[in-house]
């Protein structure tokens, strides 16, 4: 069964332990700048939004990679192969979500790979704003969340036609 990160910004307190856990798990340092998850802080509205890769079904980063360095694993996760990545950064401009980023210290790109099935961010989150769940089990919740949070539906997504032509 496929699992995914489920993020509920309403439960996020902005503690950023997910960023610390992610950078430590993946880079061996407590450095939020190297985290693959980022908490956006809308402080005027007192709202925090944890934000990371959605593991697109047909990923823009993967399609744009000129050397086949991003592949899909058995869990549907898009994984960067460091030995193949040449550091050209085309994926970083191709991903319209901005969730694959260049890491200058390695000369390669980094993105969320769900920590090989045990995401450190979800473990570290003290308020269950970030959880790791079976996709199908929570399908109903997913629809409820979607309906509650957007009045615009799917047409607001990144693949929506640009209205200006």
């Amino acid at each position, binding site marked *: 069964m496929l699992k995914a990160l489920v993020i509920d910004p309403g439960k996020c307190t902005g503690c950023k332990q997910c960023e610390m856990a992610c950078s430590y798990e993946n880079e061996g340092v407590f450095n939020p700048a190297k985290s693959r998850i980022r908490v956006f802080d809308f402080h005027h509205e007192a709202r925090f939004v944890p934000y990371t890769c959605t593991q697109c*079904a047909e990923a823009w980063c993967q399609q744009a990679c000129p050397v086949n360095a991003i592949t899909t694993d058995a869990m549907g996760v898009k994984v960067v192969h460091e030995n193949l990545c040449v550091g050209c950064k085309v994926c970083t401009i191709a991903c319209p979500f901005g969730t694959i980023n*260049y890491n200058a210290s390695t000369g390669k790109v980094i993105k969320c790979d769900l920590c090989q099935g045990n995401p450190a961010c979800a473990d570290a989150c003290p308020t269950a704003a970030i959880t790791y769940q079976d996709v199908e089990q929570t399908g109903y919740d997913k629809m409820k969340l979607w309906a509650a949070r957007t009045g615009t539906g799917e047409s607001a997504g990144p*693949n929506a*036609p640009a209205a200006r032509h």
Partner: protein
Amino acid sequence: MHHVILGAGPAGVTAAETLRGLDPDARITLVSGEPEPPYSRMAIPYLLEGGIGESGTYLRQQPGHYDRLGIEVMHARAGGLDAASKRLFLNGDALPYDKLLISTGASPVTPPIEGANLPRVHTCWTLADARRIMELADRSAPVVLVGAGFIGSIVLEALYERGCDLTVVEIAPRMVARMMDDVAGGMLKRWCEAKGLRVLTNTRVERIAKSANGSGEELRVSLSDGGTIPAQLVVMAAGVRPNVGFLVGSGVVVEAGIRVDDHLRTTAPDVYAAGDCAQAVDLSTGMHDVLAIQPTAVEHGRIAALNMGGRRTRHRGSLNMNVLDTMGLISSSFGLWQGVQGGASAKIVDEGGWRYLRLEIDGDRLVGAQAVGLTEHVGMLRGLIQTGLRLGAWRDKLLSAPERAAEAYVALAQGMTGHGWTGPRTKTPV
């Protein structure tokens, strides 16, 4: 059904794979004009730097990938096309097809400079070019690079990493003139100079000649400013043009590139075009134009193949975008980075900190962007432009603080939804 795909770059390979996904029984022939397995020109600079071997440039890394998919890879050059009888001429032999995709890419232009055909003057386009350049571009060898556009600037980085004694000659007033404005171009030039390169903008190469003294292994490059510089190697990066010569008399109409409609069909029946050779819709302008970049080639290849395979799919346009690493200074540009008439512009410039961000807004939509020294979440700039998302209250916030673009994106596109599978459903730009 026999699909023939002429050209084995990213457009051709993506098309072949997409066609196989649509039709397990079709015969698919992928024709490569070069002897190597399908590879990525974009990876060549990293080969020159020594970061990868030749196999690291291959578009697909799994051994037997094409065999496994039943894609027949041929190595041949096209000499002509008879669209009426549906035959493609390869090295003189006729190859019949039911549907043809032309994804022949582009080739470098040789500028009309005396001496441009001398030995030791090379373009940097193919693996064969890369091998010759690696022989000649020794450590501390004097090398002249002609052209500091996008491709020239990528080659520049590779030659610098090889330790060459490099002089760059650019006819335009600034580097990357077709990718970024004078603030960004000026920043890149000063960065290069700080790294010890000579960058001569507003300068033409008048003549390349063999050195009069010595063993004939050295060239002398004469410049429009009156100067002459020695070179063991001259690398030409003066632009590219579509590979369409074989289409003369074929009935396929060629303008700046091969004319295609919004389903990537050419003017000849059952002939499609994709990638650097195709003149397809630019998302930003709605006009047909050649956008010779990797992501566009892949989009074209996929959409052309869907149409060839009977899935009518409209190409609504590709977004122009580039990213460049100039010896550690990373820059990118998107869409209408020059701005539009009647639009609004926001800039932050930090010359000392090597950072620059410029946003171009038309009405309340972001239509273009440039960034220097900024990589974090840079794809969101594409996200904002590609979606044409209405900025609403964020318009004025971005005009006074363009550095909040990522925040604006999350607030507008993402902030109201959860993530993982709760985020917006995503597809490739079909």
